[in-house]
């Protein structure tokens, strides 16, 4: 541990160092041989945290390494019909270093395709949330509305959003808009159901506070209903955007034009499985980022437990 000692007597007086000592990241130790009685060192707690981070990274790498081995094995069994990791990663690298090129309608950079999909998801998801949250609140608040709307929701919810595509085409006469429309439909259900669940589970205690102190409807909405339901709503939004990201790929395969889904289909038509697999990796990564973003927001709105 001697090597990790930050030593120097004066350093202990540094306010930053003091703060780190108080928070347990650094520690003070006695050293018998020196005249200065204490030496600042990295605490065991910090060492363990750093060690744990390295351990997680190691296991993650191990997982990907095993996947790569398996993939190579399958690739060599298929005698190269399924491209192996090296070939794919080379193509992925090509795509990533030049993401913005635009050589006409059927040959655009990966970032342009990805952006087209993300924009569609955000339009559809945004509009869907704007509809789903208020309806969810109404269903959660009113027994009558719940009885009227729930059967309809239960019938529509299990339908694959792609089934709505022809209706979108007829109504909007444009396949990109129809794609946004199916994302809109997709985004409705998880948000709506979670919002209704959250609003429906507001404890009597909280409602009694509103009654006893004569809260207006607006005050009830903003001071009790929304703060209580917010974690439920965000969970709904997280599920919604997850499904929306699943559906966009299929939707764009149907609609064509631009987008990551179209890119997958176009790469298949161009017989480049390397591109297809690269796209799969990118789609997965973006999906993970969406999920993390909403998990983060979820933590922000969850009040002190």
């Amino acid at each position, binding site marked *: 541990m001697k090597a990790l000692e930050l030593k120097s007597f004066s350093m202990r007086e540094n306010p930053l160092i003091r703060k780190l000592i108080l928070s347990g990241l650094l520690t003070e130790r006695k050293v018998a041989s020196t005249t200065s009685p204490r030496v600042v060192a990295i605490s065991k707690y910090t060492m363990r945290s750093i060690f744990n981070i390295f351990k997680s990274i190691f296991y993650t790498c191990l997982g990907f390494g095993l996947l790569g081995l398996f993939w190579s094995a399958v690739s060599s069994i298929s005698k190269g019909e399924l491209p192996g990791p090296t070939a794919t990663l080379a193509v992925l690298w090509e795509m990533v270093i030049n993401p913005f090129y635009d050589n006409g309608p059927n040959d655009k950079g990966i970032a342009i395709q990805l952006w087209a999909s993300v924009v569609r998801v955000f339009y559809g998801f945004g509009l869907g949330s704007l509809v789903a949250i208020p309806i969810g609140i109404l269903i959660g608040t009113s027994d009558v509305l719940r009885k009227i709307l729930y059967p309809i929701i239960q019938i529509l919810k299990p339908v694959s959003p792609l089934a709505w595509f022809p209706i979108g085409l007829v109504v909007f006469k444009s396949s990109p808009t129809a794609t946004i429309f199916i994302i809109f439909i997709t985004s409705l259900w998880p948000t709506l159901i979670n919002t209704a669940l959250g609003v429906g589970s507001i404890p009597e205690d909280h409602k*009694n*506070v509103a*009654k*006893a102190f*004569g*809260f*207006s409807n607006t005050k009830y909405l903003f001071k009790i209903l929304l703060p209580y339901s917010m974690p439920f709503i965000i969970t709904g939004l997280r599920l919604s955007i997850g499904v929306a990201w699943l559906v966009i790929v299929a939707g764009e395969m149907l609609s064509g034009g631009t987008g990551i889904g179209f890119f997958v289909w176009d790469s298949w038509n161009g017989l480049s499985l390397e591109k297809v697999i690269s796209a799969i990796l990118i789609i997965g990564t973006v999906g993970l980022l969406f999920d993390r973003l909403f998990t983060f927001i979820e933590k922000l709105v969850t009040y*002190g437990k």
Partner: protein
Amino acid sequence: MENNVLVPEVETTELYDSGLSMQIRNLKISFDTPKGEYVAVKNINLNVKHGEIISIIGHSGCGKSTILNAIGGFTKPAKGEVILNYKTVKGPGPDRGFVFQNYSLLPWMTVYKNIYEAVDSVLKDKTTAEKKETVDRFIDAVGLTPHKDKFPSQISGGMKQRVAIARAFAINPKFLLLDEPFGALDALTKGTMHIELLKLWNMDNRSKTIIMVTHDIEEAIFLSDRIVVMNDGPAATIREIVEVKLPRPRNKKDIVHQEEYVKTRDRLIGLLMDKVSIEDYK
């Protein structure tokens, strides 16, 4: 039908003249259950004067909280009525400050905000500055100024109860309804809270009527002018109303030695514990 028995209309003048602030008339509360009607309390009659402190005491399940909920307007009577300030109670309202059994603070708001939102909702005519001044005054009165920016999860049970009481007082209600307010507190904290409660009551010249549900005999004697002792449920009724003739201000240390205190306590123990004797276990 029994439920339709007419209760004679109250002469409002009668209430004015007698200095009553609250009257419970022939109250019966029942709940529908799968096994039929469950009568929680019945034949409850009680007159309360302005500025009185009344305790309702009884064993668990005797319907004492049910009566309080009826006064608060949270439970509808099956028969009879509760009259507050010459009006029959139809629902909850800010003329009554309710201190709930489990504090009922909103966990996503600070101590300050919890009180402010109630004040903001009830005292609509005041300016923001006046409202803030009110909140600060009551937070100070219960000694929570250093903790006003904390969340309910960050403070102790006693502090939460102080917030709940400050919130109830801050809206300046005519009536204070306290549902086992100190039940979850340790004996020492309880003692301090009793003093806090009386301090707030004294702050506006003992003009507020306080109705408190409790199962603590000593607490009831120390705080109340009269103690309503309930029979055991179901279909509980008032067993007896015991008057506490101790003069105010009362001093916790001294009153326990007074003859009146001992007499009142013995009476209450007699009423509440008559069933619990050695013979019962043989």
